[in-house]
C-alpha cells in the first residue's frame, strides 16, 4: 500500500523516520481530497444532466437550505480540516524538537554551496557524512542571503538565515546518497546549489570519522576547510590545487605579467572593459559565470579561446577557485580590508 501510494504521488524514497511519519498523513489527506472532489464532481454531473433546461424560459422552484443542512455543510469540512491540523501539528512539534542525544553538525549556506563543519571533526564542502539510525541535528546559518536546506528523501527543510542559527534534525534509516537542494531563492546559481548527504552504517561512519580526524591534509577526502585562519587546509589552497589540476594556469598568470588570458593578480573587483565596450566589476558572479560560459563577457583585447568548464567544475571547485582568485592581491592593496561584511553571530 505504501509503495503504491508513493509511486502514484511521485514521492521520493522514505529515507528518514520523519518521512515515514509525514507520508501517512499525506496519504490520508490525499485520499480524503480525492474522495470529496469526486463526490462534488459526481453531484455536479448528475445535476448537470438531470436538470437540463427542457422548456424555454423554464421557471424553477425556490430551494432554500434549512439551518440543519447548513450546519452539516459547515461541520463536515471543519471536522476533517481540524483532524488534519491536530495530526499535522503533532508531527510538526515532533519535527522541530530534536531529541537530546543528537550528533550536531554546523551547516553554512553560502552563495551557491553548502559547507559542513563537525564540531570536533573535519570540514566539508557539498557532502555531509552522517551515520544511519542515529539522530543528527543540523545548525543552519547563512553567510549572505536566506538559503533553505532541503533533502527531499528525508522530507526535511529549514531556512538558513544570515546572522543566526536555525535547527533541523533527522534520523536517516537507509544508508545511501541523497541529494541536498536549496529551496529559498538566493541568486544566479540558486538552481545549482546542490549537495549530497552520504548516509553510512554507524560502524563505517565511526571509522570514517576517526580516519578523517587523524588524516593529514593531503589524503583528506573533502579537504578545503574555510578561509578563516587556523583551519587545516584553507579554501584558498584547495582553490590553488583545483586551478593547477584544471590547467587554468596555462593561460592565466598569477604574477601580473600578460598571458593568453587576463592575469588573476588583483583581478577580484577590478573594473574590466569588455569587448562590447561596457565596463563591469569582476565580482564572484562574473568570475563564476565566466568559468561556465567564458564567451559571454570577453575582456577587451583577449581572444575567445577559453573552453567552457560546465560539467568539469563542481560548484565547490568553482567557489574554491573564486576564493583563490580573491586571495591574489599585490602588496599595495594588502592594507585595505577587502573582506566583505561577514554576518556571523557572536556568542551571546
Amino acid at each position, binding site marked *: 500500500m505504501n509503495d503504491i501510494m508513493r509511486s502514484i504521488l*511521485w514521492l*521520493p524514497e522514505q529515507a528518514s523516520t520523519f518521512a515515514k511519519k*509525514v507520508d501517512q498523513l*499525506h496519504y490520508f*489527506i490525499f485520499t480524503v*481530497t480525492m474522495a*470529496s*472532489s469526486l463526490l*462534488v*464532481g459526481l453531484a*455536479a454531473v448528475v*445535476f*448537470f444532466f438531470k*436538470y437540463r*433546461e*427542457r422548456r*424555454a*424560459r*423554464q*421557471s*424553477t*422552484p*425556490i*430551494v*432554500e*437550505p434549512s439551518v440543519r*443542512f*447548513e450546519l452539516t*455543510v*459547515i461541520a463536515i*469540512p*471543519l471536522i476533517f*480540516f481540524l483532524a*488534519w*491540523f491536530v*495530526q499535522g501539528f503533532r*508531527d*510538526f512539534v515532533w*519535527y522541530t*524538537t530534536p531529541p537530546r542525544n543528537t550528533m550536531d553538525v554546523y551547516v553554512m549556506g553560502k552563495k551557491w554551496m553548502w559547507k559542513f563543519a563537525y564540531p570536533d571533526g573535519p570540514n566539508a564542502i557539498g557532502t555531509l557524512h552522517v551515520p544511519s539510525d542515529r539522530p543528527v541535528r543540523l545548525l543552519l546559518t547563512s553567510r549572505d*542571503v*536566506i538559503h533553505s536546506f532541503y533533502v527531499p528523501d528525508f*522530507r526535511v*527543510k*529549514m*531556512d538558513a538565515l*544570515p546572522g543566526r542559527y536555525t535547527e533541523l534534525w533527522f534520523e536517516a534509516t537507509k544508508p545511501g546518497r541523497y*541529494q541536498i537542494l536549496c*529551496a*529559498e*531563492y538566493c*541568486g544566479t546559481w*540558486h*538552481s*545549482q546549489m*546542490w549537495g549530497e548527504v552520504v548516509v553510512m552504517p554507524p560502524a563505517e561512519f565511526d571509522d570514517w570519522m576517526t580516519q578523517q580526524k587523524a588524516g593529514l591534509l593531503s589524503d583528506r577526502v573533502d579537504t578545503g576547510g574555510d578561509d578563516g585562519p587556523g583551519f587545516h587546509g584553507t579554501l584558498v589552497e584547495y582553490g590553488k590545487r583545483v586551478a593547477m589540476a584544471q590547467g587554468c594556469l596555462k593561460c592565466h598568470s598569477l604574477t601580473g605579467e600578460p598571458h593568453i588570458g587576463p592575469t588573476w593578480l588583483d583581478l577580484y573587483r577590478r573594473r574590466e572593459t569588455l569587448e562590447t565596450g561596457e565596463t563591469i566589476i569582476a*565580482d564572484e*558572479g562574473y568570475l563564476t559565470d565566466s568559468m561556465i*560560459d567564458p564567451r*559571454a563577457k570577453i575582456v577587451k583585447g583577449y581572444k575567445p579561446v577559453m573552453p567552457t568548464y560546465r560539467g568539469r567544475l563542481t560548484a565547490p571547485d568553482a567557489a574554491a577557485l573564486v576564493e583563490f582568485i580573491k586571495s591574489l592581491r599585490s602588496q599595495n592593496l594588502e592594507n585595505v580590508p577587502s573582506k566583505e561584511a561577514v554576518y556571523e553571530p557572536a556568542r551571546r
Partner: protein
Amino acid sequence: MSQPVASAIPAPTAAPVYQEINYLNADRGVASWLKTLDHKRIGVMYFASVLMTFLLGGIFAMIVRFELTTPEPTFIGANTYNRMFTLHGMVMVFLFMIPAIPGVFGNFCLPLMLGAKDVAFPRLNLMSLYVYWIGSAIVLTGVITGGADSGWTFYAPYSTSTPMTLFPVLLGVFVLGFSSILTGLNFIVTVHTLRAPGITWMKMPLFVWAIYATSIIQVLATPVIGLTTLLVGIEKVGGFGFFDPGRGGDPVLMQHLFWFYSHPAVYIMVLPAMGVMSEIVAAFARKNIFGYKMIAYSSLGIAFVGFFAWGHHMFVSGQSSFDGGGFAVISMLVGVFTAIKVFNWVGTLYRGAILVTAPFIYLCGFLFFIVFGGMTGIALATISPDVHWHDTYFVVAHFHFIMVGAVIMAFLAAIHYWFPKMFGKTYNEGWAMVAAAFIVLGFNATFIPQFLAGNAGMPRRYYMYPERFTGLNVASTMGSTLLAFGFVMILIYLIFALLRGRIAGENPWHSKGYEWRTSSPPIKENFAETLEYPEEPHTYREPGEEPEHVII
C-alpha cells in the same frame, strides 16, 4: 461541434434591439474617454489595459516554461531566467490579478447592480485608473531597464543586497497600491450610500457582496505592502539596516510584513471570481441561489479571517512552531468558508434548468479547480506536509490552480457573460465552447505535472534542475502551449464578435440579474427611469405564477 447550442435560447419574441445612443458613443473623441467620469467607460478602459498586462505576463510565463524543457540551460542565461519568473510574478499579480475583476467588472456592473447612476466618487474612480496606468508604466520601465531578479516576494537580504536595481519595480508596486486603495474605497462607499430604494443588504446580488468583501481587504491590507516596498527601497538605497541582519535587523520581520498584505491579497484575487461564479451559476441554472445568506456571509468571513492567516507562508522560515500552529488553525477556518461556497454552488444546480453555454463550461472548470486547488491549500496548511512541500512546485501548482483555475476561469466566464451587456453583441457560441475546452484541458496538462514535480521534490525558481524531473517539466510545457493557444482563440473570436457580432438585445440570457434590466450597451445614466426591485435577484418564475418552495 454539434449544431450551435445557441438555438437552445428561445427565439426572442421581439427582434433584439441595439441601444443606438449608449455610453460608448454618447460623446466622441479620445479626450471624452480620457476625461470620462462614467464608471462604464472606466471599466472598459480597465478591460483594455488589463488584457495587455495579461498578455505581457503570459509571454514571461511562456519563456519560463520553454526554458524549463531541458534540465540544462536551454536558450536564456541564469540571470535572464531569474528576471523572467520574477517579472512573470510581479506583472501577473500586481498588474493583472488584483485590478482585473474589481477594475473591469466591479466598475462596470456594481452601479448597474445597485440601481445607481455612478460610483460614489467618479473623479476618484478616474484617478484610480490613472494611478494604475502610471504604476504599470513605472513597472514596465523597470522591465525594460533590466527588471528585478528577486522573485515577486522580494525577500529582504537578497532584494536589498542584489546589485540589480529593484527601484522602478518597487516604486511601481507602491503606486499600484494606491490605485487598489482608491477602487476599494470607492466601492465600499457606493454600496453603503447609493443602493436604489428597495435593494436592502439582503437583496443585493452576490457579486456585489464579493466586491464589497474584496474592497475591505483592498483598503485595509494595501497600506502594509506600500510600507514594505518603501522600507525595502530605503534599505536598498540608504542601508538603514531595518531588515539587514548584519546591522541588527530581522529578515523574518520583512516576511511577516510582506505576507500580512500578500495573503489577504490572494483573497482580493479570488473573492471577485467567486462573486462572478455566484452570478453565473444562478443565471445558467435559472434558479435562485441556494443559501444566499451563507455565501454572502462567507465572503465577509473570508475577508476578515483572511487577515489572520498569513503565517502559513512561513512555517519553515525560522518562525516558531507555536506561531505556526496558530496560523495553521486559522487557515483551516478560511478553508471552511470556501468549502461552504462550493457546496452552495453545487446546491444551486439542484432542480435548476441548466443552459449549456461557454460561461457554464468555465463554471464547471472553476468548480473542479477551486475544489482541487482549495484542498491542496488546506493540505499545505497542515504544517508537517508543508515542510516537504514549501517552496517546491507543489506550491506553484496550488496557487496556479486557484489563480489560473479559479480566477482566470471566472474572468473569462465574466467576459462571456457580460460581453452582450457591455458591447451589445454576442460571440459565437460554438467557437467559445471549443476555446473553453482547450483552456480547461491545457490548464490540467500544465499544472497537474507540477503537483507531481513538487511531490518529487523539485524546488521553485530553478533554472537548471536534476535530470529526474525532466519528463514532468516537458509535459507541463506542452500543456502550457495548449493553454496559450486557448487564450489566443478567445481573443480572436471576441474581437470578431466586437466588430461583426450579432446584436444581443437587452437580455440574451434571460437572466434575472439586476444589471440586465437596462439596455445593452447601457445608456450613459444607466437607467432611463428608477426601477422597482420587488424580489431578490435570480428568482426565475413568470409573473403571477406561485413557485414551489422547497426546504432541504
